[in-house]
C-alpha cells in the first residue's frame, strides 16, 4: 500500500532491490484492479431487463439490411419530431452481437463495457495522490453496486465509459500531459454515433474549461469571500425555481465566474479547449447532423418523460440498493471531513452529479464514475489521517505477493462464476418468457398479422422487435421523437382517462397486448372487447374489439385460453 509513507515501517531484514519492489507493486496493483474489475461483473452483466433492448436490436437489424431509416419505422402514430437515429452504431453492434452469440453475448459484452467504465473511473485519480489500488478496488465495488441500477444492455453503459474516459483524460491533462487531450476528438466522433449521452462528456469538458483559469498558483482553497454567498444563493434559487439539474449547472457557472480554480504551473488550457471544440464539432458527424442536439433538447425538455419512464424519476429510497445514492455521497463527505479537504473541481462535480441523480435516478452511473476516484483517493487519505496506528501497522505489514495474487484470483473467479449464468442462452430465454409477451406475440402473429396493437410503451419495444414491419406499435420508449401529443394520447388510453375511447377509434386500434392486471383491460372488457388468450408466465393477455358489453361481471382474464 502506498500509504506506507504514513505508516511506520515494519522491521525488515533489509530493503529489497528497487526494481524488485517496483515489480511487486505493479503486480499487486494489477491484481487489485483485476479483482475490482471482476468483482463488479455480477452487477454490470445483466439480462435484457429494460425492455428497450428489443427495439434497439430490431433497429440494428433494419439498419444492417436497409440502411438507416429516414422516418420512424415501427409506430403507426405520426411522430411530432424528426426521426433522429442517435444510437445507430450501438444498435448495429448490438444486433451483430446477438446474431453472433445470442442475447448472452450482448449481456456479456455490455457488462464488460460497464465494468471497464468503473475501472477507468478508478484510474482517474491524480498520480500525485499515489493511492493504493486496493482503495481503487474497494471504490469500484461500491460504485459498481450503485451503478448496476442503471447499467446493463443499453447504450447508457457506453456513455458511462465515455464519461469515465473523459474524466481520466481531464485528470491527466491537469497533471501536465498535453497530448492526451487529442484522444478526445476521435472518442467523441465514435461516442456521438453510439449514444446521445456524449452530451455528458461535453458537459464535463465544458465544466473543466470554465472552472479553471491559467495561473501560477496552486489549486485554490474553498472560496473565502462573499462570492460564496452569490454562488450559493444563485445556485439555490435556480435549483428551487428551475430544478436540480439547472441548479447544478448554475452552481458550476457561478463558481467558474466568481471563483475559477488556478491551474498548476505548466498546464495550459488552450490544448484542452481546442481538443474539446474539435470533439464538439465532430459530434456533428452523425446521421442526424446538428439535429442530434435538437433530439437531446427535446428529450430533456419533455415534461411527460418522468411520468412515463421510471428512471427519469427521482430515486425511490425504499429500495435498499437505491440507498447507496445517499450512502456513498455521505461517505465521501465524511472522508472529506476527516481526511483531506477536497479540491474545488471535484467538490463541484460531485455535488452536480448528486443533484443530477436526485432529479433522475438514471444518472446514477454518472454519479458512480464521479464518486469512484474520489472515494479511493479521499478514503486512503482519511485512513492515513485517522485510522488507529495499530490497525494501520497490521494492515500495512507486507504480505506474501503470491498469496495476495491467489486471493485475488479466487475472488475474481468467484465473481465470474456468479456472473456467467447470466450470459447463458437458457437464462436469456427464461427471462424473455417471463418478462416479455412472447407467446402473446406468437398468437398475434398468427391471428392478427399486420393489425395495429395497443400495448404499454414498455411492451411496445418488444412488439417492435417481433413485428418490425407493418407499423403495428403505438409507442415505445424512444420518448424524444414522439412529442407530447402522441404520448399524451397514449397516457390517456393507458390510464383510462380523458377521451380514451375516442382515441382508440381515432387510431383504429382493435387489438391489444396488455398486462392482465391493467386498468385498460377492465375498461376494454366493459366496452365489449374479448380476451382472446392469456399468457401465464408474463401475465399478458391478447384482446380484440367487436364483442358485446358483458351482462354480468366479466370473467377474470386468466380464465381465457392459453396463448
Amino acid at each position, binding site marked *: 500500500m502506498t500509504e506506507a509513507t504514513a505508516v511506520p515501517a515494519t522491521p525488515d531484514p533489509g530493503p529489497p532491490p528497487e526494481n524488485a519492489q517496483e515489480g511487486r507493486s505493479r503486480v499487486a496493483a494489477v491484481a487489485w484492479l483485476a479483482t475490482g474489475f471482476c468483482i463488479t461483473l455480477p452487477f454490470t452483466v445483466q439480462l435484457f431487463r429494460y425492455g428497450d433492448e428489443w427495439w434497439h436490436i430490431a433497429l440494428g437489424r433494419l439498419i444492417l439490411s436497409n440502411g438507416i431509416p429516414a422516418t420512424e419505422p415501427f409506430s403507426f402514430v405520426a411522430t411530432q419530431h424528426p426521426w433522429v437515429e442517435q444510437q445507430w452504431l450501438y444498435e448495429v453492434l448490438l444486433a451483430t452481437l446477438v446474431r453472433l452469440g445470442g442475447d448472452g453475448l450482448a449481456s456479456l459484452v455490455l457488462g464488460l463495457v460497464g465494468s471497464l467504465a468503473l475501472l477507468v473511473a478508478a484510474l482517474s485519480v491524480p498520480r500525485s495522490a499515489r493511492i493504493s489500488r486496493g482503495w481503487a478496488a474497494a471504490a469500484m465495488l461500491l460504485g459498481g453496486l450503485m451503478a448496476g441500477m442503471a447499467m446493463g444492455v443499453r447504450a447508457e453503459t457506453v456513455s458511462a465509459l465515455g464519461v469515465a474516459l473523459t474524466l481520466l483524460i481531464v485528470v491527466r491533462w491537469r497533471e501536465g500531459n498535453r497530448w492526451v487531450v487529442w484522444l478526445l476528438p476521435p472518442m467523441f466522433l465514435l461516442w456521438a454515433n453510439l449514444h446521445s449521452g456524449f452530451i455528458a462528456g461535453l458537459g464535463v469538458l465544458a465544466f473543466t474549461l470554465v472552472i479553471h483559469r491559467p495561473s501560477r498558483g496552486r489549486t485554490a482553497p*474553498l472560496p*473565502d*469571500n*462573499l462570492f*460564496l454567498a452569490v454562488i*450559493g444563493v444563485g445556485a*439555490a434559487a435556480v*435549483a*428551487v*425555481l428551475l*430544478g*436540480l439539474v439547472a*441548479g447544478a449547472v448554475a452552481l458550476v457557472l457561478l463558481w467558474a465566474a466568481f471563483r475559477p480554480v488556478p491551474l498548476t504551473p505548466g498546464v495550459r488550457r488552450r490544448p484542452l479547449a481546442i481538443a474539446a471544440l474539435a470533439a464538439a464539432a465532430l459530434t456533428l458527424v452523425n446521421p442526424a447532423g446538428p439535429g442530434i442536439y435538437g433530439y437531446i433538447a427535446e428529450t430533456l425538455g419533455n415534461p411527460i418523460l*418522468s411520468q412515463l419512464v421510471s428512471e427519469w*424519476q*427521482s430515486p*425511490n*429510497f*425504499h429500495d435498499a440498493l437505491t*440507498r447507496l445514492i*445517499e450512502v456513498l*455521497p*455521505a461517505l465521501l*463527505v*465524511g472522508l*472529506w*471531513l*476527516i*481526511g483531506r*479537504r*477536497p479540491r474545488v473541481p471535484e*467538490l463541484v462535480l460531485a*455535488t452536480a452529479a448528486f*443533484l443530477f441523480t*436526485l*432529479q433522475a435516478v438514471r444518472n446514477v452511473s454518472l454519479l458512480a464514475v464521479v464518486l469512484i476516484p474520489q472515494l479511493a483517493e479521499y478514503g486512503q487519505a482519511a485512513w492515513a*489521517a485517522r485510522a488507529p496506528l495499530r490497525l494501520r501497522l497490521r494492515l500495512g505489514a507486507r504480505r506474501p505477493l503470491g498469496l495476495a495474487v491467489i486471493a485475488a484470483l479466487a475472488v475474481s473467479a468467484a465473481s465470474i462464476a456468479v456472473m456467467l449464468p447470466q450470459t447463458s442462452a437458457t437464462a436469456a430465454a427464461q427471462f424473455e418468457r417471463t418478462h416479455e409477451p412472447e407467446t402473446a406475440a406468437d398468437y398475434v402473429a398468427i391471428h392478427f398479422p399486420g393489425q395495429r396493437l395497443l400495448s404499454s410503451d414498455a411492451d411496445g419495444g418488444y412488439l417492435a422487435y417481433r413485428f418490425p414491419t407493418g407499423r403495428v406499435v403505438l409507442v415505445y420508449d424512444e420518448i424524444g421523437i414522439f412529442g407530447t401529443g402522441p404520448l399524451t394520447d397514449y397516457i390517456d388510453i393507458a*390510464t*383510462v*382517462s*380523458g377521451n*380514451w*375511447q375516442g382515441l382508440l377509434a381515432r387510431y383504429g386500434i382493435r387489438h391489444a397486448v396488455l398486462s*392482465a*392486471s391493467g*386498468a385498460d*383491460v*377492465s*375498461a376494454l*372488457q*366493459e*366496452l365489449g372487447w374479448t380476451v382472446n388468450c392469456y399468457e401465464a408466465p408474463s401475465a399478458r393477455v391478447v384482446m380484440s374489439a367487436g364483442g358485446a*358489453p*358483458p*351482462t*354480468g*361481471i*366479466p370473467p*377474470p*382474464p386468466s380464465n381465457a385460453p392459453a396463448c
Partner: protein
Amino acid sequence: MHGPDSVVPAGASGDAGEPAAAPPPPHRLRDRFDELSTPGGMLLVAALLITGIAVTSAITDPDFWWHLRTGQLLIANHLQLLGHDPYTYTVSSHHWTMHEWLFEIIIAALYDIGGLGAIVPVLSLLTWFGVVFILLRSRLHTRNRLALGVGLIVAALAANPIWGPRDQMVDFTFSCLLLLLVERYLMRGGRAIWLLLPIFLLWSNLHGGFVVGLVFLAVIVVAEAAGLRLELPDPAPRRRIATVAVVTVLCTLVSMINPNGPGILLYAAETLASPAQQALILEWQSPDFHQLEVRGFAVMLVSLLGFLVANRRIRARDAALVALTTALAFESVRNVAIFVAASTPTWIEQLSHLLDRLRTTAGRVRPPRLPSLRVRVTALALMTAVLLGGWVGLRLVPAMATTPTALSYARTYPVCASAWLREAPHGLRIFNQYGEGGYLAFSLAGTGDKIFIFGDAALMGDKLLYTYADISDVVPGWQSTLEDYGTQVVLFDTGTALDHVLQESPNWVMVYSDPHNQAFVLRSELASLHLPPQPEPTGSCAQLAAQGEGSS
C-alpha cells in the same frame, strides 16, 4: 469531526461587521431594541414572522376530518377509547390503536368552541413554537443573527410541503423542544432535562410519532459516547451523557403510560414496516424532486454539506442527527419536517462558522455605521407591523374563516356528494377514495353510512390497502371484490380510471355527478336503494358546478 487544518474559531459571533466574540446577553429593553434593530436583528425578526406565515394555512390534511370526528365521539363516549372504528364496513372488527386520542379530544373541544376558526390558530402556533425552539437551540451555539435569520427562512422553505395545521406538527414541535432541552443540558447542565418526562407523558398521548423523540435521545447518547471515544470536537461531559441515557430509559417507560399501554411503542414500528403504506400513500413515498416544493429540502441539504466541507467541524451528536434525519427524509417526504427540526440548528451554526471565516479573511473589524436607535426602532416596528398584518390578514384570518363546506374544500372533498348522501336512506356501504374517507366520516356522522377506507392506514392493514388499490386501479376482478364487501355505492373522483370504467359498465348506473365526484350503484340494486334525485346545488356546490361547467 475536524480536519487537521480546521480554522473554525471556537467562539460565537454577531452580525456581519460586529466583533466575532459573543456579546454579553442584553438585559435592558434598550439593549434588546438595539440588538433587534440592527440589520441582522431585523432579518431575524422578519424570518420569525415569515415562518409564521409559512406555517399558517387552512386545514388541508385529509386525515384531519376523521380525527375531528373521532374526538367528538371520544367526548361523547366519556373519553373511553372506541376499540373499533365506527366508520368502515371493511375493518370494523380490527382493533384500533388510538394513538392520537388526546389530540383528537383537544381539536374536538376547540371545534366545539369556535369551529375551524379555533383550531387553525392553535395548530399554527404550535408549529410556530417549534420554529422558536429551533431558534433557541441555535442560539445556544451562535448569536449571528444573519445566520439565524437566513437559517429560519431556509428551514421554512425546506419544510414547505409539510407545513400546515395537522397532527404531525405535534411531533415537529415536540422534537424541537426535546432537542433544545437536551442540547441545553449537554452544554450547561441544569435540571430542565427532567422536563422530558412530563413531555413524553403528554407526547405519547398526543401522537404515535413520539417514538422519533426516543430515537433522537438514543442516537444522541450513542453518538456522544462514540464522540468521546474518538475524541471528536466539543464532546459533552461524560456524566451528562450518562444522565441523558437514564432520562432516555425513563422517558421510554413514561411513554407507556397511555391508554394503549406498551403496545404504543410497536405502533410506529408497524407503520414503518408496512410495505403497503410505504408504496401506496403519497406522503410516505420518497421526495419527488421534480416538484417545486420539495427542492427547498434538497437545497438545504446540499448547502449544509457544503458548509460542513468548508468548516470541517461538527459535533458527534449533530452529525448523527443530520445523518439520521436525512435518511428519514429521503425515505418519506413527510419526514422532511423532522429533518428541519433536527438539522436546522446545525445548518445555522455551520453558516455562522463560515461567515466568521469570511470575516476573518476579509479582515474587516469596524462595524458598519447604523442610523440612530429611534430610526431603527421605527423601521423595526413598521416592518413587524407589515409582516404581522400580512400573517394575520392574509393567512390566519382567511384560514380561520374557512368552513367545512367552503368552496376550497368542495374542490377537494366530497362536500356536495355528502350533502346528497345525507338525504339518502341511511346505512349505505360506500366505496370511497382513500383521501376522502376522513371527510366522509366527518360529514356523514350520525347517518349510519359506512365507508370502505379512511386515512388510518395502520388500522386498515396492508390487505385492505392493496385491495383498495386494486379496485381504484380497476384491476380485473374489481367488481367481484366490491360485491364481496357488499358495497352499495361507489363514490369516486370524476375523471379517474374507475370513474370512466363505471360509466362504461352496463352493470352500474350513475346516480350522482358534480365536477369533483360521481356516484354509481349496481343497476340491479338501484330500485331497492331508494336514492333521492340529485339536489339542485346551492352555496359552494353551486359555485363548484358553475366553475366545473365553465372549465368544461
